């Protein structure tokens, strides 16, 4: 079956100093294309070019396999055949959902629909798309995901062929992405294509059909998502520089041990925090046996880190467990199903399980929680639900007083401020117990852990300590 090419960019160059350098991409009908690039890769310039906010100095565009000039490209954008679903740029905060969908719809002067008609038609459209939004709500009262849905509704109302949007990994939750993926699959049946701009290749990766990996204004690789392994992506991004740093497999018989890793956080409590960096960690279901196998395969090297691994080898019957393992997957669902007090009151032993808890005790627990995390009371700043659930999860187990706590992807999807708070809390916990942080992203544990073990295929290939000078 032949593919139908909607848009192709051929050797696009822009005038900026670090602009696009002979960038090529193609987009087919009913496809989701992920343009993946780090912060200086040029993906924002690609976005600006595709929405007509940047002029192309050289190169060609093809629309449905016919060459088009810049003027024709602008006409396509103005007719909304290419639509950028950005809540900041498209929506007006003070208008309602229905008004936002209708605003600047019709350039010709004529009879505009009444408010009631607008609301009814918008409600019908939202119903068709499966979005549970009230057309009369003002945009400023909606959260980011709901605003994104309004933008997507507007794109569908224009019958856009290509819809662009940014993947905001620090705001969108796992459930949001699953919902978006299902919705995009339905839209693709109607011939719509999507281009998603992102920096991280976690959950969004699974929602896309093909990926364009960008670096330094160039396209490094274009391939279906199924043909690229996640742990190969840094190679494409950083190229030779990354390849030199990482030894090819089988070439490093000795474990290089470096103690010159610099960190902004000169906190002695990080000596109680061990980081484990494994690129494959995100591919498998988190399992405590991973740590046991890791120790068994590398026990000679991990001799000096016994204090972290000893609690794992105590009697693993539930009542005698000497460690706490907090998993990352599906956490928000579990915690959100119960009130905060119930979450905080998880019993530590059978006596607590059988004893009654008074209402006063529940209130005291909640008050103590908010006393520990006073910043949560700051109404001027909205913290993500994910961050909140994570804090609850760690806090409720903190009182169990076990010698070891293992945190899976502790900083996943947190923004910078939330990351700082989480780091401070982990340092606080490290005063009382040892902590193991495990992640498939180095930057998540780099600034927090005192020592980092680099793991590949169950073997430790490198050990990194913070410079103590």
């Amino acid at each position: 079956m032949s593919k139908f090419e909607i848009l192709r960019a051929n050797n696009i160059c822009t005038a900026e100093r670090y602009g696009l350098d002979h960038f090529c991409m193609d987009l087919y009908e009913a496809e989701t294309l992920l343009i993946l690039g780090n912060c200086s890769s040029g993906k924002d310039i690609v976005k600006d070019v595709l929405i007509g906010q940047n002029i192309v100095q050289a190169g060609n565009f093809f629309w449905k396999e016919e060459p088009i000039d810049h003027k024709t490209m602008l006409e396509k954008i103005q007719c909304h055949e290419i639509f950028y679903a950005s809540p900041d740029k498209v929506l007006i905060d003070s208008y309602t959902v229905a008004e936002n969908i209708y605003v600047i719809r019709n350039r010709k002067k004529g009879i505009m629909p009444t408010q009631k008609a607008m609301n009814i038609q918008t409600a019908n459209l939202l119903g068709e798309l499966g979005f549970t939004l009230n057309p009369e709500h003002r945009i400023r009262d909606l959260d980011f995901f709901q605003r994104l849905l309004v933008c997507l509704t507007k794109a569908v109302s224009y019958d856009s062929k290509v819809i662009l949007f940014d993947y905001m990994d620090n705001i969108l939750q796992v459930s949001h992405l699953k919902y978006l993926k299902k919705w995009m699959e339905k839209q693709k049946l109607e011939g719509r294509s999507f281009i998603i701009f992102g920096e991280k290749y976690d959950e969004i990766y699974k929602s896309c059909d093909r990926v364009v990996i960008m670096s330094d204004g160039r396209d490094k690789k274009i391939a279906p998502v199924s043909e690229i392994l996640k742990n190969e992506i840094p190679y494409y991004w950083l190229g030779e520089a990354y390849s030199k740093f990482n030894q090819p497999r089988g070439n490093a018989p000795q474990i290089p041990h470096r103690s010159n890793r610099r960190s902004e956080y000169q906190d002695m409590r990080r000596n109680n925090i061990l980081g484990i960096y494994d690129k494959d960690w995100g591919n498998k279901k988190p399992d405590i046996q991973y740590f046991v196998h890791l120790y068994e395969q590398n026990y000679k090297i991990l001799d000096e880190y016994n204090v972290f691994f000893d609690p794992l080898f105590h009697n693993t019957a539930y009542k005698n467990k000497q460690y706490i393992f907090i998993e990352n997957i599906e956490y928000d669902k579990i915690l959100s199903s119960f009130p905060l007090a119930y979450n905080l009151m998880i019993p530590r032993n059978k006596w607590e399980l059988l004893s009654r808890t008074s209402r006063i005790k529940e209130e005291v627990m909640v008050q103590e929680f908010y006393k520990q995390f006073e910043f949560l009371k700051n109404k001027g700043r909205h913290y993500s639900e994910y961050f909140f659930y994570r804090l609850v999860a760690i806090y409720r187990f903190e009182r169990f007083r076990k010698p070891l706590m293992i945190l899976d992807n502790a900083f996943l999807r947190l923004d910078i401020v939330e990351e700082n708070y989480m780091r401070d809390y982990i340092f606080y916990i490290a005063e009382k117990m040892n902590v193991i942080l495990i992640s498939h992203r180095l930057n998540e544990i780099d600034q927090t852990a005192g020592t980092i073990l680099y793991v590949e295929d169950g073997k430790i290939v490198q050990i990194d300590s913070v410079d103590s000078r």
Partner: protein
Amino acid sequence: MRIEVWSMIILVLTYPLFFLILWKKWIRYKTRMQIEFEREKTRLEKECMSKVLNKQMQYQALQSQINPHFLYNTLDSIRGEALMVGNDSIAIMTERLSKFFRYCISNKGNIATIRDEINNVMDYFYIQEYRFGDKFHLETEVDEGCDQYKLPQMTLQPIVENAIFHGLERKKDGGTVSIKVFETQKNIKIQVSDNGVGMSEEDLYEINKNLRRTEEELSQKIQNDNSQKTGIALQNVNERIRIHYGNDYGITVHSTKYLGTDVMILIPKVNENEQI
């Protein structure tokens, strides 16, 4: 008297007008001749370039300049001898080699179908297997109905050869070359990928820069540097595609060190029965 004055005035005005009209016609004629001359010049240059590139390709395939019939006859004799002594593997190899050379040197207007090109690559790969054993693998994935479309002869084989010798040969445990052919509404896209050692960013930049060169720059380069015999396969294939189909078509290369190289070929759909 008055009539004579008027006739003088008319004559004085008519002559310059007459010369003006003649002069304008002359200018128009000259412009038309120039346009036709330019057109003819471009056509001849393209034809010349096409012939030069084809000759280059044939020369690369037959470096020893052996008479092709002598070559085919010799190979057939070797095949016959091999069959007589019961050595089937040598017989098959010489048959494939003979087929390969016939295809390279044959002159079917220098245009072939995708089916023929893939078969030629498979013959080439079979021959290479004798040298490298099980080290390399070839995978082909051609969309249904795509193999009937036309493309310039000897488009795929030089790229596959590059993939083997620059990509896979240096890799300790070998690798795979995959050829994927799929169609869109108006074009055919062929991707030749290998999971070899890739190339450095500087080399990739140079290659893509050469591929983007215009015809004038390329003809100048060929004139100035006739002795260059290696490293021109990609450029040669790219230029032949552009000469046949225009500058919107051709080759792009992506590569990352240690991970492999992808070569994407874009050509328009031309059916077996149509003419390019």
